[in-house]
């Protein structure tokens, strides 16, 4: 294999990086590797492009879908900005907020791989607070509940569960109105 920096000499040294279980390698010749490590004096992190990583992830997920037989045969396209899923796979960038909705089936596993999670629990815009606030509170409580259960603190967990049920009750009433 040729060196990835000079693309001339044979690559004899390999740097490896692991993020979120994904392995990335960069292959360099002896000369480039020495200037490389001189220059950075550290593991060469800046050379790893997040978009490469994304593309790899997306392909892995596609493969998984294919094996499971769930990959839709038709071309997926955003109904608002008309970005196709293939274009997204190439650039790693979504086109508009509707893309998140229209590509959700494909995106959810990607988000889980990237973040270890696919659901938001943080800040909520003031404008959608009220209702969303409770939903996020419930999500947070559920997370805490799981932690308590895993620590076998059942008494505290039962209290959390009651809190969740109460909040869910309030939401249901609101929705019914």
């Amino acid at each position, binding site marked *: 294999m040729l060196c990835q920096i000079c693309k001339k000499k044979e690559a004899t040294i390999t740097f490896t990086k692991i993020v979120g279980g994904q392995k990335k390698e960069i292959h360099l010749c002896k000369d480039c590797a020495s200037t490389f490590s001189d220059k950075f*004096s*550290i593991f060469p992190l*800046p050379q790893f492009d997040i978009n490469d990583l994304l593309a790899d992830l997306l392909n892995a997920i596609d493969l998984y879908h294919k094996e499971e037989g769930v990959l839709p045969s038709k071309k997926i396209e955003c109904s608002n900005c008309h970005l196709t899923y293939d274009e997204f796979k190439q650039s790693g960038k*979504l086109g508009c907020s509707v893309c998140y909705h229209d590509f959700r089936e494909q995106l959810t596993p990607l988000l889980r791989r990237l973040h270890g*999670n696919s659901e*938001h629990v943080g*800040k909520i815009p003031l404008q959608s607070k009220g209702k969303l606030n409770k939903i996020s509170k419930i999500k947070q409580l559920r997370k805490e509940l799981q932690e308590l259960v895993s620590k076998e603190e059942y008494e505290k967990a039962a209290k959390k569960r009651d809190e969740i049920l109460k909040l869910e009750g309030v939401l249901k009433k609101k929705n019914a109105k």
Partner: protein
Amino acid sequence: MQNKDKSIILNNLKESSAKWVNGQGPLSDIVISSRIRLARNIEGIPFSPRAEQAELKNIFELSQQVIEEDSLFQDSNLLLLDELTPLESQFLVEKHLVSIYHAREKRPYRGCIFNQKETLSIMVNEEDHFRIQCLLSGLQLNNIWKFINKIDDEIEKKVTYAFSEKEGYLTSCPTNVGTGMRASIMLHLPALAMVNGINDILKAISKIGYVVRGFYGEGTEVMGNLFQVSNQITLGLSEEEIIDNLEKVNQQIINKEQKVRKDLLSNSKNQLEDQAWRAYGILSSARIISSVEAMELLSKLRFGVGLGIIPHPDLGIINKLMLLIQPAYLQMLAGKDLDPFDRDIQRAVLIRNEIRH
């Protein structure tokens, strides 16, 4: 908003020193600065890379409106990057007010808003419509979060953010979705670098979802033993959790650096003194100096000052110099384009003047 033209704004920016550089925040001997940025988009408009010209203009005008009408932004300036020369854009990068991507992108209506103290800046029409960033000296992410959260609320009074209950704040790149928050801490780790301890730490923290970058963020080199550690995960954790986790990780790195500093001080004090005073000697008398050499020596000098083995200059001056000696900043100060050799001369003059005070 301060209504001034481009040349006045840039001139002021050249003369002023950002507050986050002052070296007076918590743990300043090791932590240069803390930073949080939020990625936000406006509902109903495609993300900037996919927006039409009229939509980009719309976003830019919205940002103008926000800072004109809101008292929180009364001392803020707005620059349209289309109007800047490449040198001026690069100067904003070196000031840490915009990203390299933002400076080099060709898209029209890219803006940069920043306040007088340079603690707050907003990139308009970067990859996301708004990238709000706040920088403070030393380790103080919680204070930054309080401040930037308020700014975020204030902007939201004027616009509706693209937000989904499931994915949170929606962003151009799925690596930012959720909180849209990237928190980072800039560390100066000369002792760990001396004992070749950086590698292990970087390997360990990249395994648990943190990224290490150079002085100027994504895709930049590590220089002067400065490392920027930031969170990778933005979804599924609350802002407070992200901050808390990042601080814990950084605290561990800081503890290691402190321990090695202590060990070095008790075992090799003479070498450390020699190293710091030699750095001071060269910096205060060199007539030609490259930015690479200057950064290396400033790192050694900073190390010595942090350990208390050399009494001056103070950390604020060293931090400031690390910015001033960069190529574009240097040329802005000189008021003209300089070739690399002239820059090396100019750089030496600048360092001598600052250090001998």
